[in-house]
């Protein structure tokens, strides 16, 4: 069981590390990674964000993965409210065909 878990972890890690190369294949060469973001010209939230990136890629990643769905849902719900207000039925679909 332990070896199976190890294999799964190994496969997932390889996939994780190779994803950019695969995704970039259709689009062009893989550009060098930005190791340190230049935060000198930035202020406020932007400077904080760049500094977070410089301090820890892990925290930066965790926050990104949390923020993306939250913001998506937030604006999606906003659009929901507007469409519901207009009078569109957002819970059912009448058209039934292949």
């Amino acid at each position: 069981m332990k070896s199976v878990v190890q294999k799964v972890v190994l496969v997932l890690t390889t996939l994780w590390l190779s994803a950019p190369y695969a995704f970039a294949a259709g689009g062009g060469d893989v550009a060098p990674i930005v190791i340190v973001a230049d935060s000198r010209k930035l202020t406020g939230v932007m400077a904080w964000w760049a500094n977070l990136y410089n301090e820890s890629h892990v925290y930066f990643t965790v926050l990104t993965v949390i923020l993306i769905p939250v913001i998506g849902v937030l604006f999606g719900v906003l659009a929901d409210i507007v469409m519901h207000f207009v009078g569109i039925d957002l819970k059912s679909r009448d058209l039934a065909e292949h």
Partner: protein
Amino acid sequence: MDWLYILMPIAGVKIFWPGLIILGIGVGVIGGFFGMGGAWMVTPGLNILGFPMAFAIGTDIAHMAGKSLISTMRHGKFGNVDYKLGCIMIIGTVAGFEIGAQMIMWLERIGIVGPVVRWMYLVLLALIAWMVFHDVAVKRRKEREAVAAGKEVDKLATGIEWHKTFHKIKIPPMVHLKVAGIYCSAWLPITVSFFTGWLAGILGIGGGLIRMPALIYLVGCPTHVAVGTDLFEVMISGLYGAASYTFKGRVELVAAIVMLVGAAMGAQVGSVATKYIKGYGIRIAFGLAVVGCLISVLLKLIPTYFPATYQVTDVMATVLILGLVAAMSVYITVKMVQGAKQEIAAKKGRV
């Protein structure tokens, strides 16, 4: 006009932010309607706005995750998402993607990655376009024959029916996919997702462009369920991709968020539009989008053999893709507004 530009904290480039919102709305509408992430449309758009290619790809994947989440939620409420099918397909997608990614690195090592990928992409797109329009032609022929024979036209009839042959394969375990209305061997969706995941890994795309028609023609999903279930897959792979790219410093979150503002709302419009457009309407529009994508890849391939044409073909490909995004999103939005108007009028008529 300096306020129209934001300095991106990681990439260090100044970007015209209204352009990001407009691009987000366009691809949001198309993605929610067709059930795909739309990397082939977003990446050139971000590139034009001034993003380096590596950031364009990562930022696209990150915004795709949020956009697909809200589209999946909407399609889920319409009963368009088969979560069981989606979960089964994740197994094949991950395994196939990994093998595709490994093959890309091998092709890179032997130095033929560019031409192989572009030619494969071209053949695949041509095949998908042929499949869609052949399906439409067969369905119309069946309808004409039914009318000529004086029979009633079956509203649930389809053109291509390859999935019926695949459903005859009874290798256990068998699964009943209630939402899609399919009873088949679990190996069918696993094999299909493995193949589509492998292609996505090799071609460097999210996979929606391939998975959506595969769900329809090979697995046998109704069009609307194929769109919703594919978005569920795009959401999972988008979140995974977002984490992977962010960790490697290839995501400009500020840009992804600005795009997401437009994309989340656009995705709702696209998803709701599927309420008002018949399954075959979606298939035809999808086929046209695939043809547009095919021509753009062809234009990018020409300079490989005629280097002097690079500048012209590059501009032509970009104009084509952005023109396609604009035309498709306007068409879908107009259809959505027309359908909503009719629905509201019908409601008022009942009261």
